[in-house]
């Protein structure tokens, strides 16, 4: 159990980008865990629990993001976050309806 930050790179494959529903799902996952999670695009860093800030990253399809997690369950949280960038929300495979 390390307290150092783990960083993972993800590519946004959801054709709608990181949209409102993704942002809400990300925030929910992070709040359930103990790790502090930051999303990074280029030089912009935002806390993963702040939906509005996550949206302002404007992560469009095909773009690359870094997810930085720090805490006892960092790896587990990152595992849960990753599919969200592909638009997979567990029970449904479709992205949020337009």
């Amino acid at each position, binding site marked *: 159990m390390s307290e150092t930050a783990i960083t993972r790179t993800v590519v946004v494959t959801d054709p709608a*980008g990181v*949209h*409102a529903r993704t*942002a*809400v799902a990300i925030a929910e996952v992070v709040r359930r865990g103990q790790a502090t999670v930051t999303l990074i695009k280029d030089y912009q860093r935002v806390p993963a629990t*702040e939906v509005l*800030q996550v949206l302002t990253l404007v992560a469009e399809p095909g773009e690359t993001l870094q997810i930085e997690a720090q805490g006892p369950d960092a790896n587990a949280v990152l595992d849960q976050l990753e599919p969200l960038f592909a638009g997979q929300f567990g029970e449904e495979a479709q992205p*949020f309806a337009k």
Partner: protein
Amino acid sequence: MRKLQGIAVSPGVAIGEALVMDNEGFRIPRRFVARDAVVDELERLEKAVAAAATEIAHHRETVSAELGEKYGGIFEAHLQMLQDAKLRSEVEEMIRQRHYSPEYAVSRVLRRYAQVFQRLESSYLAERASDIFDIEKRLLRHLLGRRREGIAHLTSPVLVLAHNLTPSETANLDRRFVRGFVTEVGGPGSHTAIVAEALEIPAVVGTGAFLTEVSGGELTIIDGDKGLVILQPDEETLNRYRREAEELRIQATKLEPLRELPAETRDGVRVQLLGNIEFPYEVDHCVDRGADGVGLYRTEFLYLGADSEPTEEVHLQAYTRVVQAMGDKPVVIRTFDLGADKMPNMARMEDERNPCLGLRSIRLALRNLPIFRTQLRAIMRATPLGKVRIMFPLVSTLLELRQAKMVLADVMEDLQEHNVPFDRDVPVGMMVETPAAVMMADRFVEEVDFLSLGTNDLIQYALAVDRSNKDVVNLYNPADPAVLRLIAMAIQAASRKQLPISMCGQMSGSPLYTMLLLGMGLRQLSVTPSAIPEVKSLCRSVTIPECQAVAQRVMGMEHARDVKNYLKEEVKKYVREITE
């Protein structure tokens, strides 16, 4: 400082605080709060956020229950955006540090967020801007409470900036405090343009989208001569416009003594200068400028913004006000000139793909006789009160004119049967605003008492140009030789029969064309009341032979540009400054 170019529709310069209205007539309020009010203001923000959150949570439950979790999810997103910690601290900071009002701070901060998304063209994420606006609107509604009404309740002078103004909004606006209009959409014939002209305040329309970048209370300049809007002007620009506004005031004062003098050329030919009005109170503007009458009383306002069709009494009340104010001077009342879409309680026409060429005006009147008869009855009842004249708009065939006259005869018969007094000899005329009416003018003159050239529509129909389409609006030009030939034809047809003919379009109010029009033979010009002094001053500076020479020269020209340049030079010989 930011400059926006739009279409100039009502002249003058106004400098003042912006009142920003969104699509729902929602008002974005003023900027600063008192230093000692900051704590209270923060508390007000707190309450508004809490109330908005409760409301959104409620929506989430209802929508989820009705349409499923997936749809309720968008409200969950709104809720979380609203409660975003950084957003909150940014808003609070603005209130605490800069003493912004919570309303201003909220719209300022949220609009900055919205801009991030708006910059993304065509992306799915770009639509997130509307989520932000939705949150802004919700918060403002809670912050403002009852104070959110639009332009009906004002306490200080403002410049109204809006996407578009609806007839009902302008009908209810507080005239004492509105100093100018800017709308993102609209063209020269738009409702805003007409209302601004009626109020004699500057207006610019068709600027394109900009409202998301301004907030209420910001210093703004409206240049109604150049069609410019300047947001947050720098000191230099502000001073320049203040000087200009002052000069305009001085110039207006200089023209004031003209009120008592007739519009008579140097060689003693009397020109009738009449006023165009839409609202009854404008008759006072005509009287103030010493107008020779009302050459065009548009009656559309009676229908616009009303929930139901106006009664005969409502019509009569408006006409009485105007006719009595003008005394023994003529008042030309034009029957309604609207499309079905603007009439209360009238079904919208299906397939009305081209309203300008559709069922409107006299065509609509002849298809809806009860409405038409109500108006004609009221006009006839006003005839004993002064010098009333009736005018039919958009006549394009002789049959239409005859039908309209038959309806009028029928109305008269009906009034007589009921012993209602009216003037049987009321002069009946028509607008000449379609090329068809010009081509048939020699026949029309046999059946009417007067003609009035409506150049706004005539230009549009002759040149096949929609004035509100910015891609072709440059083709819309009163100086186009094709238009001038049509005008000349109509004047010739009328003068052969010695029938009075006037012009009541915007062209007649522009001093640029005064010499040309007099030279072409017009002796009656009906203009927007504020233009009377300037046009009169020019009439009094010229002789008819001078004007005829100008007209002769112009009629030989091939391009609108040449005509305009030449007229500018000519007019300059008589007056130093003219506004086009």
